[in-house]
């Protein structure tokens, strides 16, 4: 779309730049106020910080704070996200392939069940899930609440519908001849998947990773219920809310905690930006 008039284009440029700054200004406010003392944050939140050294002081106090447990929370968030994504991508892709390539009533029913369940909101499942997990722990001795295996299992269960749906759509477009050729060459059924299909799935793996990754890393309600606040294992959002609830109105510290919580995401995003944006768009259109 060419805009004929030069001044018109200039106006659009100015508008875009202004909106851009407006969109990012909240993050900028977090940054400058993380470099202030409690007194400065309350009295002059809109001014430039006097001494950027405060940023280091505040960061150290968050880093060593026993309520937010930043280091262990970061580690927990990371471990939960990586394990859940690994399980979701591997198990959903192999299940989706089996469901596409096996044409039986059972197979169609299972696929239909996954798709239909996408309308179930978390709210209707969350309370019974807790008592059900507790019951399983009593019967089997396997801890599902406040444990890594429990929350990873929960993410696998809640994420599997959309993941299978997306893999299913992609696998359907792969020509069957490819697999038939492999079979003729003596490839066993499971080998066909891991050697032939799995590598072809790369782009859809990326999309599923991005969609689930953003969801799991930022999720608040599920870890709040399954892990609880202030326990040994807590994710970053739970830790931040626990911290903000304890240090009410101590904005110098809360904002620094927020800054430290955002940095890993922003850094990761800048590295994998194209990949993430493409994944998010592809995911929404399916």
């Amino acid at each position, binding site marked *: *779309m060419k*805009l004929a008039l030069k001044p018109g*284009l200039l106006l*659009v*440029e100015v*508008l*875009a730049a202004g*909106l*851009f700054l407006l*969109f990012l200004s*909240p993050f900028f*406010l*977090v940054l400058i106020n993380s470099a202030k003392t409690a007194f400065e*944050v309350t009295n*002059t939140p*809109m001014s430039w910080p006097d001494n950027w050294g405060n940023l280091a002081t505040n960061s150290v106090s968050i880093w060593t704070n026993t309520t937010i447990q930043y280091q262990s929370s970061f580690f927990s968030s990371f471990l939960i996200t990586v394990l859940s994504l690994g399980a979701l991508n591997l*198990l959903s892709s*192999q*299940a989706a*392939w*089996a469901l596409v390539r*096996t044409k039986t009533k059972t*197979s169609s029913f*299972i696929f239909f069940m996954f798709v239909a*369940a996408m*309308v*179930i*909101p978390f*709210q*209707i*499942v*969350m*309370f*019974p899930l*807790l*008592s*059900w997990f*507790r*019951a*399983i722990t*009593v019967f089997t001795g396997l801890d599902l609440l406040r444990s890594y295996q429990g929350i990873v*299992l*929960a993410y*696998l*269960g*809640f994420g599997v519908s959309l993941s299978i749906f997306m893999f299913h759509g992609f696998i359907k477009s792969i020509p069957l001849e490819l697999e038939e050729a492999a079979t003729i060459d003596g490839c066993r*059924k*499971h080998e066909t998947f891991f050697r032939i299909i799995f590598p072809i799935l790369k782009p859809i793996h990326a999309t599923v990773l991005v969609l689930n990754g*953003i969801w799991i*890393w*930022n999720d*608040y*309600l599920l870890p709040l219920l399954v892990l609880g606040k202030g326990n040994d294992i807590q994710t970053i959002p739970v830790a*931040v809310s626990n911290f903000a609830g304890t240090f009410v109105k101590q904005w110098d510290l809360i904002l620094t905690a927020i800054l430290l919580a*955002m940095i890993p*995401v922003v850094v990761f995003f800048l590295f994998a930006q194209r990949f993430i*944006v493409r994944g*998010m768009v592809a995911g*929404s*259109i399916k």
Partner: protein
Amino acid sequence: MNKKKENNAVFWVFVTPVVFAFLLVVIVPFFLGVWYSFTTWTSSARAGAGTQFVGLTNYFKSFQDVAFSFSFLITFGYTLVNMVAINFVAFGLALLVTSKIKGRNLYRVGFFLPNLIGGLILGYIWQFIFNNAIPALGHTVPGLEGLAKPENLILATNTGALMALVIVGTWQYAGYIMMIYIAAIESVPMELHEAAQIDGAGPWSRMMKITVPMAAQAFTVTMFLTLVQSFKQFDVNVSLTAGGPSTMFVGKPILGTELIALNIYNTAFVSNNLAQGQARAVIFFVVLALVALIQVYLNKKKELEL
């Protein structure tokens, strides 16, 4: 024959893990949940032991609670305004960054960024902005003294706090929806625009007569996504307003910005009434499914007309 056996074995080995996890985490709790909503279920009862069937009591009690009706009312209002605001802003941004301006790629990244940060954290940031940063402007900038008055705080009034939820919701989600619109706008063939331009169509009529109809399918998707996202809003609600400030509704004091998801949570854990919270969750599920179905149906119809 042997081949068939092997295929069958591989099918079950590949499918069983996800089916197992899915049954355990979604399907069983779903049916348990529907059942519990008709009982006297409490958190101390282990997996339903010692609970009594009470029919629709939990549902009747939910509808008698004015706070619940009020939550529904404001959730509908919030969803409607939020949907309009997000889509309006997102479409505008998409038009902006698909024009020939410099730095459009940088702008796309910037507009998208809030979407990567969790709603909980975004809510705290904006609580600081509304309660501290904006009043501070009132203290320093002449002519804006009104902003510094405690009674003018946005989060201090019921309507203001709901508006604040819309502002944060739009800021959070517009960048994502923008990306979908960008994909739709860029898929419109350039020839259409060129042909229309030769016929004398200006930028505005080209947008209304070419871009919008060609992006009709994207509208169905974005409307659905923003509807579900707004209706389920919880994280921003918790950290920005926590349901406050209090207000009066049909003569009773209640929380003024407690959206439905937060109401369900509070009923179960703050009022300690798990069975009733569960009944509300079932109502929430039914209403959400209905509203989403109607929206997709209407949009699809509109799509065909365009």
